[in-house]
């Protein structure tokens, strides 16, 4: 009796008051977003749930056309595994993406702190090397495989911070301490890479440094999320 009376009261309030109705709609939307959050720490549950997506986009997808050089990089990336794939230039850009509870964003977005990443990429000899860079674009793209199947993936355009080259007998003092010490890179990100989301290794802490004998450098300290 009490439940039905309260429900009737609530319906009346919602029907009468436009402001409250708007507030409730916003509240319900927010609750839905929270419910869909990519919560970290449930890896086993995610493995067993076939409906778990590989990644979640936390911003609206905006359709755009890939620039020629980015399309060329994408073609190289896809044709490594499927030389006969049809690769359109249409894609959907997003500002932020979340994978297994870790967010990655472009350096132009409000969450630009999440744009500094370490990623794996093969060098000209084909050996996988870890590099540091900043994400300039994130997009979802669908291509048709040579078998006629549509495959959707998420890709990142990354500008690499090139590691500092030792000069005049000055080596990188951080490298001595391995992964816990990090390494120095040139301040300006230059070389452009296109990578799949699976190639992202971790974030890094970026610190612009002024060191005697080292000009225009940043310090890169790879950090993996622990909690």
């Amino acid at each position: 009796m009490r439940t039905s009376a309260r429900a009737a009261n609530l319906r009346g309030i919602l029907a009468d008051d436009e402001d409250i109705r708007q507030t409730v709609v916003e509240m319900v939307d927010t609750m839905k977003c929270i419910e869909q959050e990519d919560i970290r720490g449930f890896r086993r549950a995610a493995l067993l749930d076939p409906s778990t997506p590989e990644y979640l986009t936390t911003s609206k997808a905006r359709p755009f056309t890939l620039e020629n050089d980015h399309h060329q990089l994408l073609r190289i990336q896809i044709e490594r595994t499927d030389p006969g794939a049809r690769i359109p230039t249409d894609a959907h850009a997003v500002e932020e993406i979340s994978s297994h509870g870790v967010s990655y964003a472009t350096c132009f977005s409000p969450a630009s702190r999440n744009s500094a990443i370490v990623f794996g990429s093969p060098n000209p000899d084909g050996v996988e090397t870890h590099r540091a860079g900043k994400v300039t674009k994130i997009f979802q793209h669908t291509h048709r495989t040579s078998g006629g199947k549509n495959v959707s993936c998420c890709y990142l355009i990354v500008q690499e911070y090139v590691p500092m080259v030792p000069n005049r007998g000055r080596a990188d003092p951080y490298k001595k301490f391995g992964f816990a010490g990090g390494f120095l890179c040139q301040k300006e990100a230059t070389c452009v890479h296109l990578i799949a989301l699976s190639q992202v290794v971790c974030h890094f802490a970026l610190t612009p440094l002024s060191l005697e004998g080292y000009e225009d450098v940043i310090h890169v300290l790879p950090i993996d999320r622990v909690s």
Partner: protein
Amino acid sequence: MVLALDVMNEIWADMRVTQLPSWVSPAPPNWGTKERGKLSADNWRVICTIHLPITLIRLWREETGRKQALLENFMDLVSAVRIANMRVSSPNQIDAYNKLMLRYLTGVKTLFPNHPLRPVHHAALHLGDFMQLFGPNHPRTSMYYERYINFLHRLNTNQKIGL
């Protein structure tokens, strides 16, 4: 004093310009002062594994003698902590952890002969065994259980136990 005011000023200055991912809770900008007081375990972890290596290696890169020994000893601890916090473990990582932790504690005994080792140091030497037996540490840390509590807090309930 090792972390004197001049060193602390450099650490605070580097902290101000360090860009951290959003999931890292930044340490208080005035840590180490009387006004700030005590720090949380997470604050200490961020300070020791991120901020101190950045500044101390920069400041002491050309030092020799005790400061160099202190830096190398501290970096052994940082490397061991970072391995212990990784989300995956392997026999190589466990070996590296054991080797680094043992080297760190041996270094502590040499560098600070008047300070006895504490039970927490003894416990740290067993962490490698736990990783060997049960895998990575992160599912057994308090953060893991706190995250579950947070998850349970967010579930809608009818306030009636068992129903």
